[in-house]
């Protein structure tokens, strides 16, 4: 039967609101991306000579031009990535092409890659802008590693076969290891870097067999070949376990998150932003690509359950830890664990709905996960950059050494407030829009007929809601302790704010966070191609500019209308107040329930009378910490008559440390000790080993011969 000729006015299948772009331009997209890769590699190669050269020519006053060149180049690369991603999302996918290197390596861009390319481009642009603003600080090795880190992520995203995927993934890991080890003189940073790289090795060791198993039946590593022969039976189970462990470890899924709260803070701030914002998303991309796309749509219901369960656990644990941490960047890293958990819940739900033939809901869940990934990438970059600015301006990352910075750093404070509100999923910001979609998907989990799954769904809803509320608490704690109140140290009182590119690096993601909060509909429409790849038969609820409608029951979200509602209500409140109240305010010393004014030598008051980081976390530590994080608290009161201060000790232990990593390390040590007995042999015993081997093999040969 002949294909009917396509109607001339028919748009390409994946045409979206940007209009179908010229398919002929598509190879150009790939060429541009490959050139970007090469350019990033070149930047890395030239970074050390560039950093050294001016010292030779001009001496030490050479200035930061190597840093400027590298970060400027990365900014350009980021723009190319975002542009190419948008071009593909608006046009057609690019067919796989080999990379011009000596091994078979296919790259391509389809809608899913393109979505994450946009994400990577935006996050990298913010990060590079910040790097540009602080180019003077960058050591040569960081200038080498930074473009390679970007290149690794780019390569992982445009991979069209298993080899390139793992190559990019691992290149990203080792380049970022150099960045994590930036401050390698401090033992904590070394510990973080070591654990980070060990987990990266673990990820690789899980992903390579997974790809091997996926490609085993077709014998070809390319994605196209793998799609034709999806795994079945125990192979499928093994693939699932390996991918969840491998990519999940990189994404920071509980219980493999042990490295994340250590490593993300250890890197320079703009790298932390990239790691939290983009790198975890690359891991999510790998999860989605391998489990939802390549493993085929015909997987059973339990396919999504591990993601669902681990995602829920990550969400709760990450958000709770964020309420207990005292280091700003560690706190943000824990919040990343939470958000990764939420995204994984979305992906898991998509897999389950797909298995239950609930196409619409599957599309909803997948779209929500993609949208949240994008939103999180931006607001988490924003937060890391903002707190990086604080760490520069006020010279500390400790909540207990900051405070009152809203006066000294107003722009930073404003931008961070936007990011924190989005992370707390408050309407009308971007975090709320995507979490609303996620929650709608979770609330529909009962439509899968299986009772056990329904019960799981209820638990997941409770966990996600708990996580969202905990995240709000953590963000209030972060913003309140860092920017509000009084400075807790003289250094914090003398903080200064960055200008120029540093400010732009904060305003760009802040603006996008606001914008994406208002435009989830068009974004979802843009993601349609990506959702189609993950959930082939799923129909996406077409988001329009004004509204996203969910399911058949009529739940919908209208971000612009919400903004209108808020405007109306706000105007009403304003008008009512203005009608009666006098303008202006009077200033006076803080009342503070009638406490004494601070003495002269403490111009900002006694810092001890402010809530501390541990104090603010106390209610949650008592409510949930004891059971989930083995939190403890002890009060030491001085003896009566002793003028010494009372002390409160508090702390917690991550369960992954206590129940997973520590026992594994013990097991390893025990095994190594055993092996040592086998290794540490005197000469005769050493000789005995080959002799015994020979005799055993001879006996084997004799037995085989006799048998």
């Amino acid at each position, binding site marked *: 039967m002949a294909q009917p000729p396509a109607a001339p006015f028919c748009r390409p299948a994946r045409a979206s609101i940007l209009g179908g772009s010229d398919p002929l331009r598509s190879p150009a997209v790939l060429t541009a991306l490959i050139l970007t890769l090469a350019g990033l590699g070149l930047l890395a190669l030239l970074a050390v000579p560039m950093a050294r050269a001016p010292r030779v020519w001009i001496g030490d006053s050479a200035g930061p031009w190597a840093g400027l060149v590298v970060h400027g180049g990365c900014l350009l690369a980021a723009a190319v990535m975002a542009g190419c991603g948008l071009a593909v999302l608006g046009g057609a996918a690019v067919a796989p092409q080999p990379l011009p290197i000596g091994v078979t390596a296919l790259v391509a861009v389809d809608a899913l890659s393109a979505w994450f390319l946009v994400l990577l481009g935006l996050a990298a642009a913010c990060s590079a802008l910040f790097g540009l603003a602080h180019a003077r600080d960058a050591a040569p090795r960081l200038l080498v590693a930074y473009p390679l880190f970007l290149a690794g992520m780019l390569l992982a995203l445009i991979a069209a076969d298993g080899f390139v995927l793992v190559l990019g993934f691992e290149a990203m890991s080792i380049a970022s290891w150099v960045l994590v080890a930036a401050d390698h003189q401090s033992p904590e940073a070394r510990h973080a870097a070591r654990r980070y790289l060990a987990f990266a090795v673990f990820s690789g060791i899980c992903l390579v067999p997974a790809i091997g198993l996926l490609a085993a039946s077709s014998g070809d590593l390319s994605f196209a070949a793998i799609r034709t022969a999806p795994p079945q039976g125990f192979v499928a189970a093994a693939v699932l376990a390996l991918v969840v462990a491998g990519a999940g470890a990189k994404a920071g899924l509980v219980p493999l998150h042990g490295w994340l709260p250590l490593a993300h803070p250890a890197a320079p701030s703009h790298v932390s932003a990239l790691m939290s914002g983009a790198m975890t998303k690359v891991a999510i991309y790998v999860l989605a690509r391998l489990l939802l796309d390549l493993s085929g749509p015909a997987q059973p219901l339990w396919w999504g359950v591990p993601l669902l369960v681990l995602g829920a656990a990550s969400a709760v644990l990450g958000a709770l830890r964020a309420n207990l941490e005292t280091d700003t960047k560690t706190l943000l890293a824990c919040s990343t664990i939470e958000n990764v958990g939420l995204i994984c819940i979305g992906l898991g739900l998509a897999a389950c709905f797909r298995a239950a033939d609930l196409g619409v809901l599957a599309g909803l869940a997948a779209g929500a996960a993609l949208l949240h990934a994008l939103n999180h990438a931006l607001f988490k970059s924003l937060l890391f950059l903002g707190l990086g600015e604080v760490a520069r301006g006020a010279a500390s990352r400790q909540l207990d050494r900051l405070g009152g910075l809203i006066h000294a750093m107003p722009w930073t404070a404003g931008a961070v407030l936007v990011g924190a509100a989005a992370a707390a999923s408050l309407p009308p910001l971007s975090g709320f829009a995507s979490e609303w979609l996620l*929650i*709608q998907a979770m609330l529909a989990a*009962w439509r899968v007929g299986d009772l056990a799954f329904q019960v799981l769904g209820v638990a997941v809803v409770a966990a996600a809601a708990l996580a969202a509320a905990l995240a*709000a608490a953590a963000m209030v704690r972060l913003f309140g302790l860092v920017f509000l109140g009084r400075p807790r140290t003289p250094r914090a009182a003398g903080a200064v704010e960055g200008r120029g590119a540093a400010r732009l690096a904060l305003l760009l993601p802040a603006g996008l966070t606001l914008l994406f909060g208002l435009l989830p509909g068009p974004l979802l429409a843009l993601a349609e191609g990506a959702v189609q790849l993950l959930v082939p038969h799923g129909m996406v609820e077409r988001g329009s500019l004004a509204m996203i409608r969910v399911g058949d029951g009529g739940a919908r979200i209208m971000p612009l*209308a919400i903004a209108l509602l808020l405007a109306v209500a706000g105007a009403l*409140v304003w008008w009512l107040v203005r009608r009666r109240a006098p303008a202006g305010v009077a200033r006076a010393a*803080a009342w503070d329930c009638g406490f004494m004014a601070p003495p002269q030598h403490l111009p900002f008051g006694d810092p001890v009378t402010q809530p501390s980081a541990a104090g603010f976390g106390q209610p949650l530590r008592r409510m949930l910490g004891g059971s989930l994080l083995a939190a403890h608290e002890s009060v030491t009161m001085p003896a009566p008559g002793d003028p010494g201060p009372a002390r409160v000790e508090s702390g917690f232990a991550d369960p992954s440390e206590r129940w997973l990593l520590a026992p594994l390390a013990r097991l390893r040590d025990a095994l190594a000790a055993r092996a040592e007995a086998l290794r540490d042999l005197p000469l005769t015993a050493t000789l005995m080993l080959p002799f015994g081997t020979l005799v055993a093999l001879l006996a084997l040969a004799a037995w085989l011969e006799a048998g």
Partner: protein
Amino acid sequence: MEILAAILTQALHLALVLAAAPLVVGGTRWLKARMMGRTGAPPLQPLWDLLKLLRKRPVLAENASWISRAAPYAGATAALAALALVPSFSRGMAFAPLADLVLIAGLLAAGRVALALAGMDVGTAFGGLGAAREMSFAALAEPALLLVALVLAMLAGSTGLEAIGTLFQDGSLGLRVSLGLALVALLAVALAENGRIPVDNPATHLELTMVHEAMVLEASGRHLALWEAAAALRLTLWLALLAAIFFPFGTAPVGFAPLGWLVGLLAWGAKMAVLCLALAGLESAIAKMRVFRVPEFLGTALLLGLLAALLLFLSTRLA
């Protein structure tokens, strides 16, 4: 015509709730006082208080930032916006398509965050204490609320208030144990969200166990008025929400129906009065909990929500 009716009802609704909010607070206080054998302030006292506060110029601490000045507006706006979504006397208000439990939860969270930030702005011990407790309690209240939303969404197929209200108004559901459990859970969440006994005592000042008042200690003048108004709006919101979900009788249908509106208005007034009475009765009957018992209280609510969902699964399976 429809659109005009929608805008009209919305405007009327806004005016109604703005007027009703102080009355709800005052009425509850008055009822509670009567039950305890006191005379009590007149029900309109909160309104007079508000007006008086509005006329005073606020005094800000020297190190207060713009957060202290902006947060009261944000808090009141969020509460009012949320309340604008909950139907009172009629369906089909202009913003009805937005009326969604999850959005309302989000708006409430926004108001809460504004309040907590304002509490931390000056850097006093009490402000931080209150903010920490407020955010922590919300962490437990929110899952319970979402579980109730899940139960309702299972029945109505949506978290939209219109759909839920319509379903209950039909009466086709009959009486279900799961709904009863959901109601109790929602009540508990409502108590916690509004800082009522047994979670917080709205009538106290300067006590180490307080939550809400601790955050507004530094507010004065119109800022304090806005915080008080926001609290009143929130209480009204919760009562209206309970009424709209579980007792939707008498609410006027979509469209232009002045008579229906009148009936709806009366029905709503009656429902709110009953709920205020119930609240007052509850508050005079039980004592405030120690702060760290509150998680148990909210945990119970969460458990009830969970139980409601499970029962519903079973019943849909058996049916």
